[in-house]
């Protein structure tokens, strides 16, 4: 009895901090449509600030003042980020802002290291709440009850704020139609800033509130990210109560799940998410997303045209250059070039789904890593030669994408994106935790190319032909009826249905094809590195691909290739510096501010203007 109650309460208290952070994310997304990847960083900052403040304010009252101060401090940092960066890119094509938030993650990581040092910081016990209560013979820390109370207080306060105050009313209106709110005399600039303040404040409060349960560490930012995204999506985007229910559901599921299946941690959460979204595609309390809310703003895309003669010549010259590269490049340049080519193909495959296909995937690494693992497993378990394994890689990621796609394509916009991330996390969790088959975290080693390709130059040519070929195939498909039908479905689903296009099937096959092509990149990758690890399926790898596509420009076919090359090269150059994350983050933010259409998008427009002037 006591055990059961305590386990329930423990689940509720674990849910509390995650709910606080997730509600902030949900609010920010609802109003500003920014998918704030940096939300985890705000959570981390909350914990660090709280650590500093509580070390000075040690009384009972002081502790709670410190919590509040930390939340406000993080809220103000959110305001700074919003004013300095995001405010300037709201007009950019949707999702582009998340590149900026990715830059913010990098900057905050290094700044936190500079300010608070490398060591994990253990939080103090909450003064006055540092003991336990006895519930039918089982002990429960008092602070757990405080956390539960805090989460409920915040839940009620948010409800009151949104439903009983003018500001809340304006925010809800802005969630639906921000432009109209502006036309009614509301300064939406400050409404956005205010929203960002509130959202960041909640992230900071979550980070501060969990301090007595754990502490502050530099790894907190990415560790909470998946959890809060899951909570927001399971609860339903924009629903605060939904986020609360989702957090409770997930952590109760976990608290009792580990009693029955101790090894099911990680997978449980994502499995629950997949189940909820299959049954209720818009989350527990969410509403269907209006069509075209993601990736469909900005100036309309122009019809496809065959490459003009000058562009064709430039392209051919560039490929010739790539073919002659080994003649004058040193060994390492080839290594870097191999990686750039592989990443270009990976990014191009994602672009195929998210640009012309209109299906943004936050989990594309599943197919990249899936291909890599398929090849590696075939080599390590069946002793297959490289040639066979490389063909097997895209087939298996294609099959994986067919399975994932079957669930995902019924959704759209950010829900689709989140569901792909959930499936990618399921795939990652399986690979990470099922070490009997996959070697788990220790990966699969010794996956080296066949003798003829083991020379670096030979492997470079293999990669060059496969990647450039793959990218050209992706491009070609866009011009075929299949590619047109895919774009048709994106442009107008109702029109497509009414001229006999099977919308879901078209999206499904397009998604699978995109996964198939990512698998080629994965196969090339594993043989270039000689090993594969779960990291290749993890969230940061998916983010990499997303950043590459957006950085290059989602509206042009050459955006992903440009983005992948620039990002890979920059990463390699900059990581020689000690505080490279700070530098890379700043640089990414600078690129975002300078090229809101993406790099290739920017030069594409520039080229267009040049041509129109008749030069």
């Amino acid at each position, binding site marked *: 009895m006591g055990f059961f109650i305590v386990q329930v309460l423990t689940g509720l208290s674990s849910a509390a901090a995650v709910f606080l952070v997730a509600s902030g994310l949900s609010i920010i997304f609802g109003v500003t449509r920014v998918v704030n990847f940096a939300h985890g960083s705000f959570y981390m900052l909350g914990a660090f600030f709280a650590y500093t403040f509580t070390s000075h304010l040690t009384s009972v009252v002081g502790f709670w003042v410190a919590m509040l101060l930390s939340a406000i401090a993080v809220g103000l940092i959110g305001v700074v980020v919003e004013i300095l960066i995001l405010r300037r890119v709201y007009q950019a094509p949707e999702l582009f802002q998340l590149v900026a938030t990715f830059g913010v993650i990098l900057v905050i990581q290094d700044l936190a290291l500079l300010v608070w040092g490398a060591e994990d910081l253990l939080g103090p016990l909450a003064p006055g709440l540092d003991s336990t209560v006895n519930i039918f013979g089982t002990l429960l820390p008092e602070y757990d009850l405080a956390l539960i109370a805090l989460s409920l207080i915040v839940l009620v306060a948010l409800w009151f704020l949104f439903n009983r105050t003018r500001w809340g009313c304006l925010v809800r209106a802005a969630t639906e139609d921000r432009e109209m709110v502006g036309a009614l005399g509301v300064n939406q600039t400050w409404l956005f800033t205010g929203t960002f303040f509130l959202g960041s404040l909640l992230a900071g409060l979550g980070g501060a509130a969990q301090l007595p349960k754990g502490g502050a560490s530099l790894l907190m930012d990415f560790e909470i990210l998946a959890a809060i995204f899951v909570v927001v999506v399971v609860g339903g985007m924009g629903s605060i109560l939904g986020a609360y229910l989702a957090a409770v559901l997930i952590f109760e599921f976990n608290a009792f799940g580990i009693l029955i299946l101790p090894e099911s941690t990680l997978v449980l959460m994502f499995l629950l998410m997949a189940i909820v979204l299959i049954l209720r595609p818009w989350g527990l309390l969410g509403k269907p997303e209006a069509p075209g809310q993601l990736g469909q703003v900005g100036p*309309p*895309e*122009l*019809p*496809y045209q065959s490459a003009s003669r000058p562009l064709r010549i430039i392209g051919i010259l560039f490929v010739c250059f790539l073919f002659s590269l080994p003649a004058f490049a040193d060994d390492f340049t080839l290594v870097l070039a191999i990686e750039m080519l592989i990443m270009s193909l990976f990014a191009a495959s994602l672009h195929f789904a998210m640009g012309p296909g209109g299906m943004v995937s936050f989990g594309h690494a599943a197919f990249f890593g899936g291909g890599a693992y398929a090849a590696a497993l075939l080599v390590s378990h069946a002793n297959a030669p490289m040639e066979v394994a490389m063909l097997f890689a895209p087939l298996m990621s294609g099959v994986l994408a067919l399975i994932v796609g079957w669930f995902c394509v019924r959704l759209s916009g950010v829900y689709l994106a989140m569901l792909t991330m959930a499936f990618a996390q399921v795939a990652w969790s399986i690979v990470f935790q099922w070490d009997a088959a996959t070697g788990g975290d220790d990966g699969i080693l010794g996956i080296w190319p066949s003798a003829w390709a083991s020379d670096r130059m030979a492997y470079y040519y293999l990669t060059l032909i496969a990647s450039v070929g793959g990218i050209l195939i992706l491009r070609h*498909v866009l*011009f*075929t*009826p*299949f*590619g*047109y*039908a895919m*774009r*048709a479905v*994106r*442009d*107008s689903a*109702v*029109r497509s*249905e*009414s*001229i*006999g*296009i*099977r919308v879901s099937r*078209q999206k499904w*096959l397009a998604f699978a094809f995109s996964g198939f092509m990512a698998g080629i990149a994965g196969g090339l990758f594993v043989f270039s590195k000689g090993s594969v690890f779960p990291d290749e399926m993890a969230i940061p790898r998916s983010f990499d691909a997303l950043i590459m596509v957006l950085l290059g420009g989602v509206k042009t076919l050459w955006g992903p290739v440009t983005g992948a090359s620039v990002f890979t090269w920059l990463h390699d150059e900059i990581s020689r510096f000690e505080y490279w994350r700070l530098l890379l983050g700043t640089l990414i933010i600078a690129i975002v501010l300078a090229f809101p259409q993406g790099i290739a998008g920017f030069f594409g427009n520039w080229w267009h203007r040049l041509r129109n002037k008749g030069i």
Partner: protein
Amino acid sequence: MSETSLQITGLSKSFGGVQAVMDVSFSLHPGELLALIGPNGAGKTTCFNMLNGQLKPDSGSVMLFSKETVGLKPADIWRLGVGRTFQITATYSSMTVCENVQMALLSDRQQLMSFTRRASRMYRPEALELLKQVGIVEQEDRPCSTLAYGDLKRVELAVALANNPRLLLMDEPTAGMAPKERVELMALTADIVKERNLSVLFTEHDMDVVFAHADRILVLNRGKLIADDTPENVRNNPEVRMVYLGTETEEIAHA
């Protein structure tokens, strides 16, 4: 009764307890232009979406050329020969005018899974022919995103005609057009109907258009069919005047 294109019996649909369409029955004959009018929110678009398969009715039957279509998907219903235009034009903004029509032709010829040829070169002459019929062939290569609204309506018509439909469903075909364009478009539609012996079911708020072109008029109010009659009788129906047409006596003098 002569052969019917469309026979609707007892069609009903509700959303979360709100009865949007209630026990609606009517029929449509080849060569007939049938107008469906009624106040906003009367259930016209819901009706349309059930005929075209986007919504599944709660009850009732839709017989299309003597074939039950309830439960079929829009794509299947399209294959039975139903073209559709939308209240808010639904075209492919990232494609040219001609490509929009080519899409419908590609779908009609079952070429959507083709990975070999370039789509923009397939069935182009047929597409141009359709564009000529609706009078915008000279805009063939313009992106749809840059077209004037009235022209988009014509593109939609060309797209809807691509699979040689026997029934056209047109949801407010002239909404947002200037008076002159409205008349032109409806005259064009009437010509095509005559030439191909089509049936047309359309909704419309412009009474000039309705009374000028409809052979018969259905009036929906709060989900119920309150009239199914000739234009003249509908015009004089007191209930219709009260809920929809209004009375000229409320005319405000020009101040």
